[in-house]
């Protein structure tokens, strides 16, 4: 049977992808951040997940205000990088796992999570930057990917509790899939940042550090962070962190922290990364 063995939480700031694309990861500005990613790349190479479920948000690329699914799952064989206004990123086409994705979609819907199912889903930096962070600049991405897209742009985004429970249902779905494969789940976005308004540039390292701590110390506190607390304390775009709760919900209650790194600034953002593993991985 398939096994969901680990989770990664990571920011998905677009210029991080830009730094990889333009070979700028060793500049004075970017080196401290990318040095912090090296152990995660090594972990990926060692653990070799067959599939990564990447929980991310679309930034007006595949979806627009025409249609705003709260949770969408990509079930196609391939997902092309989206044009976000300056041409698509020159990164490998993302290879899907259609059979597992459909299995997850079916299982989630029977578990009363009313998923939107996407057969065509161009993927933007929200999904491709986490791949660049964890895999570098390969010819092909080393694992298959199931995109799980969450609305965090139109208020209100789903609650932390709903996201956590969706994670639990994803775990159940994966582990009832009849193939011996290793599956990792990524929760992406955040950490604290505010891109818009007169308060643009807000970063709250204390909030971010407590969030990283409580992914293992006090998950209940994180589940119950309200929309207004995210907005006030982590900035208008900090609410992306609910996507990390889907990742967390998919892991054991006593999942262990293997690694973390935190750096300010990556563009306008507090950039965090964490690796969590189940005990019996």
């Amino acid at each position, binding site marked *: 049977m398939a096994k969901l063995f680990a989770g990664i939480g990571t920011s998905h700031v677009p210029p991080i992808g830009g730094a990889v694309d333009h070979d700028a990861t060793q500049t004075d500005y970017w080196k401290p951040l990318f040095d912090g990613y090296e152990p995660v790349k090594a972990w990926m190479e060692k653990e070799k997940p067959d599939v990564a479920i990447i929980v991310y948000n679309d930034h007006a690329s595949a979806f627009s205000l025409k249609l705003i699914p709260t949770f969408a799952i990509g079930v196609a064989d391939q997902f092309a990088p989206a044009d976000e206004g300056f041409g698509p990123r020159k990164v490998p086409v993302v290879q899907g796992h259609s059979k597992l994705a459909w299995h997850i979609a079916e299982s989630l819907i029977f578990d009363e999570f009313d998923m939107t199912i996407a057969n065509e889903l161009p993927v933007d930096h929200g999904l491709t930057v986490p791949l660049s962070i964890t895999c570098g600049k390969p010819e092909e991405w080393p694992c298959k990917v199931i995109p799980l897209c969450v609305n965090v742009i139109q208020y209100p985004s789903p609650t932390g509790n709903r996201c956590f429970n969706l994670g639990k249902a994803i775990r159940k779905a994966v582990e009832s899939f009849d193939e011996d494969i290793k599956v990792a789940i990524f929760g992406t976005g955040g950490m604290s940042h505010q891109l818009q*308004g007169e308060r643009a540039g807000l970063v709250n390292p204390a909030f971010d550090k407590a969030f990283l701590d409580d992914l293992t110390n006090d998950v209940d506190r994180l589940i119950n962070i309200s929309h207004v607390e995210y*907005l006030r304390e982590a900035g208008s775009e900090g609410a992306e962190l609910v996507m990390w709760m889907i990742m967390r919900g998919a892991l054991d209650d006593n999942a262990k922290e293997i690694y973390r790194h935190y750096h300010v600034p990556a563009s306008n953002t507090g950039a965090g990364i964490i690796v969590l593993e189940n005990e019996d991985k």
Partner: protein
Amino acid sequence: MRTDRDYSDIPGTYVFDPEHSRQGYHLNMFCMSLNEAKNRDEFRESETHYLDKFPVTPEQRKAVLERNWIDMLRLGGNFYYTFKIAIFDGLTMQEVGAAMSGVSKETFQKMMLDGGRQIDGNRYTSEWKK
């Protein structure tokens, strides 16, 4: 901005809530259209003619033409959408952040390098009025 929400007292923050979304639909969909290269070319050729295709309000139209980023947000723009105009203009997130917060690009960049805008003193509108 509405004043009856639990987030209404967060300073300098435009929450893209249902009221904003209703107000800004066409403005945002104009921005969305700039994802396509042929539309970017058309907008480059004549901003005013291209905008004629979208039923935006006169205020929204003015804000776009003047690149008044705050007015765009105030009039229902969502920043991920309005930022597509900034991409079109070749601006970075930090340049637009500087423009929105009323400082120079250099000042904004320095603030970010120094760890970003502090949370203390920036949680409540009442703290900005002092």
